[in-house]
């Protein structure tokens, strides 16, 4: 494989698909959908190749590609993956591929829909595989606008109008990103002042010694930016409304991977480059994370709309990720990464099932349903897998994530970890109640006309369900990889902390 630019190909195939779709006539729905499916399929296979081909013995960044891009800013088009980015890359492509099938029924303006969706998938992927800060931010913002257009054009208006939901989501994320960008530029300028060379390379920026005041300031900016994206309490309000308004595929990608850019950025950029700032601000993040876990879970208890339940539950689960990151040790960060993967596939599967059900029944109100397992056994299976994964049942990959986070976090924040664990009980409460009301109980005649999943609709269930269970039964496949990526980061952090304190 030497010489073949795997990562660039993975990144550009969906974009190429988008360009082909733009050139197709608008009424050729079949060709448009097949193009999108083929493009995402190729990316998925390539990311599996990367996943299996990564040399764990060697470690570090692999599949590196570097092209000088903007000289005076020290920007390189630099790609590379390590143990942290590979799970995210894989997650993106699993969900991207499934999301195409979850939108198979789209007929009106299919051309615009799939073009934007493919741009979105490429953009998200780009953030995970680049090692250059400038390119990272470029991709990070690229995704926001396609999402807005997708929400206003294809979203649904229930409790809030789709225009409102789309704009709320967009503005929240952009304001967050403004702070992030200010932080990034400040970091860049500082690094240039210290080292004398302009550079945007994440690894290089991490080797410099910044004063602690500067680190705290910039880390606070970044924590705000990434935190907003990760729906950190109290900046989470966009998330449930946004998901409720968005079309299925966007909810899947947004909850599944886009949010994870926040967590990924915190680990890869903020923690690594600014360890002193991290140490100072981590307790604040941990306390806010409690807000996520417990407050959002309580809100879930009183929700009636399926999308709002999953929306708030994803806010709640991101609290675990934040606690894992804030605890700043290998085990907890490992857990945070695996939890991001786990929550991604779970939330995407959930939204795929909800989207499918909503399409057929035109309601998302839990109390309208009952005994759906009679009419739609396969859909019910999907809901059950996602639901049980959500409450962290052993055997699903989510269990691995939650368990690891709490083991890691307990050594740093005892009280916070204990409070956070109550989140699991609350999750079990609302998830089981929801699933029980919807799926089981006596058969309701009014839903007899609903067709079970078939054909393309099965793809998300199979792909994502498989990922949840395989990850849960064979956790070492992911775990070893992630440890491989986290270890050097934490080691580097420890090094700088000693250097900085004395």
């Amino acid at each position, binding site marked *: 494989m030497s010489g073949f630019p795997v990562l660039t190909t993975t990144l550009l195939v969906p974009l190429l698909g988008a360009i082909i779709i733009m050139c197709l006539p608008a009424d050729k729905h079949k060709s448009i959908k097949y193009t999108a499916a083929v493009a995402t399929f190729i990316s998925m296979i390539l990311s599996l190749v990367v996943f299996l081909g990564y040399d764990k013995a060697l470690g570090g960044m692999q599949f590196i590609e570097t092209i000088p891009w903007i000289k005076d800013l020290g920007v390189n088009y630099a790609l590379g993956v390590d143990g942290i980015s590979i799970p995210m890359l894989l997650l993106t492509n699993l969900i991207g591929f499934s999301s195409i099938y979850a939108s198979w029924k789209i007929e009106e303006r299919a051309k615009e829909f799939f073009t934007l969706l493919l741009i979105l998938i490429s953009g998200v992927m780009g953030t995970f595989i680049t090692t250059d800060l400038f390119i990272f931010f470029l991709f990070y913002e690229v995704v926001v606008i396609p999402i807005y257009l997708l929400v*206003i054009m294809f979203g649904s208006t229930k409790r809030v109008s789709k225009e409102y939901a789309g704009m709320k989501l967009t503005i929240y994320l952009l304001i967050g990103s403004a702070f992030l960008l*200010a932080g990034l530029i400040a970091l860049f300028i500082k690094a240039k002042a210290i080292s004398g060379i302009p550079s945007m390379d994440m690894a290089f920026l991490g080797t410099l010694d910044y004063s602690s005041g500067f680190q705290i300031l910039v880390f606070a900016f970044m924590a705000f930016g990434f935190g907003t994206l990760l729906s950190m309490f109290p900046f989470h309000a966009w998330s449930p409304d946004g998901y409720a308004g968005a079309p299925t595929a966007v909810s899947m990608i947004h909850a599944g991977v886009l949010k994870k850019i926040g967590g990924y950025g915190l680990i890869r950029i903020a923690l690594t480059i600014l360890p002193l700032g991290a140490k100072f601000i981590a307790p604040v993040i941990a306390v806010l994370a409690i807000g996520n876990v417990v407050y959002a879970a309580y809100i879930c208890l009183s929700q009636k709309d399926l999308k709002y339940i999953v929306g708030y539950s994803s806010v709640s689960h991101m609290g675990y990720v934040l606690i894992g990151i804030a605890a700043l040790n290998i085990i907890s960060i490992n857990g945070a990464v695996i939890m991001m993967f786990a929550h991604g596939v779970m939330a995407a599967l959930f939204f795929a099932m909800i989207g499918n059900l909503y399409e057929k029944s035109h309601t998302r109100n839990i109390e309208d349903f009952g005994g759906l397992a009679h009419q739609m056994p396969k859909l019910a299976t999907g809901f059950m897998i996602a639901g049980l994964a959500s409450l962290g049942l052993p055997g699903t990959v989510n269990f691995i994530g939650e368990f690891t986070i709490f083991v890691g976090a307990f050594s740093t924040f005892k009280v916070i970890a204990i409070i956070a664990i109550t989140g699991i009980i609350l999750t079990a409460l609302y998830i089981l109640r929801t699933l029980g009301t919807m799926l089981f109980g006596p058969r309701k005649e009014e839903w007899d006309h609903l067709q079970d999943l078939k054909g393309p609709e099965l793809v998300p269930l199979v792909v994502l369900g498989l990922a949840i269970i395989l990850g849960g039964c064979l956790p070492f496949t992911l775990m070893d990889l992630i440890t491989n990526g986290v270890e050097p980061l934490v080691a580097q952090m420890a090094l700088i902390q000693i250097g900085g304190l004395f």
Partner: protein
Amino acid sequence: MDISLLLTEIMVALLGLLVLVLGLALPARGKTVVNRLALLGMIAILIYAISTFSQEEAFFNGVYQIDMFGSYFKLLFLSAGILVMLMAGKYISRFEEKSSEFYGLMILATLGMMLMCSAGEFITLYVGLELMTISFYILTAYLQNDQLSAEAGLKYLILGALSSAILLFGISLVYAMTGTTMFTEIASAFTMQPALLAGVVVIIAGFAFKISVVPFHMWTPDIYQGAPIPITTYLSVGSKAAGFAALVRVFMVAINGADTSFDWSMLLAILAALTIIIGNLIALSQKDVKRLLAYSSIAQAGYILVGVVAANSFGLKGVLFYAMIYVFANTGAFAVATAVEVDTGKTGIEAFAGLSKRSPMLAAIMTICMLSLAGIPPMAGFAGKFYLFAGAIQNGYLWLAVIGLIMSMVSVYYYLGVSKAMYIGENENESPVLTTGGSTVALWICVLATILLGVYPGPLSELAGYAIQILM
């Protein structure tokens, strides 16, 4: 002294006069010949200007400077002029028998801008400024039967003359205190006398008026809305860039170069912050796309001013880079607005409803260009803002960068408001909006430049880097 170095300016002047004469002499006022001649002439001059980019020479002991800084802006003005001539398309027919003079005046305005960016002293600068502004007075009022246009022309005349007077007053104060109008000599004769400081402040106010910086921005919305759209476009991209070119040269050579303890950059920083905040906030509530773009252009001037505040290599590079990409992004947006106005006769947001169904390309181009104005990657505006704010942070203005970044995210709200109308609005008229060949070409140039310079800004930023060397 080699006069052939002035060939670019001489050719523009000759072309402008030739077009004016032919418009009078030819039958049917040269309708078919003149526009082609003007366009091809401008393109030829642009190619010549590219080939002579790196020439350097000071004329008449520095009164007129041929350098890369000037060359860069000359390329900018010529490209903007060509794009505006192309995109005017069918709009020209509204000028009826006066369409030939339109081209002549456009070319003369371009000449004025070129003089401004190369002037090495105040009187030459003022002559260039007046040549440009007087051409614009006429052009603004070009739709004689249109009340708004006539009103805009009158307003622009009165307010423009006022601002020129202010500028002249400042120049005379500076001359009185230093005994010279040459930028370099002013720098060495600079003292902290109150009258001289007042002179500089008044000069800055005069420039602030031309580039519509708050609180000297009041004229902008009415005039942008009333003037024919191609003129509005040229006003917003060309006249503004010329103002900045002159301001940067004056500020860097005469004021900032001087050894004083007065913190001029803080004064400009406050103006920039006000401009960004007020321009964007007022734009939020606009219902007319022309007026919206007018307020957005005020905010854009604020961003560019951030680069002048920074006054370091990143900041100035940002000014030049942003001025150039602003030409493409803003012209693209105005070109779509022109096509829509020609088709519907209106420029309110409701005229844009359902555009994505009528002409998907136009809707996409409008969205891309406006996102570039908002600074969303991968559009060119992002790279430009990165330079500007990197410069500001390097010079210690973190607060200004934060304000600028937050407000540019706020601006996304009104830009997306137009996108929203285009993508989900309903319109009974489903037929495509027709564009002429010329405006289609202009649209494609704008959108491709906006995307390509955003994805790969390296070459342009290097060019800007060479251009500012003379000021560093």
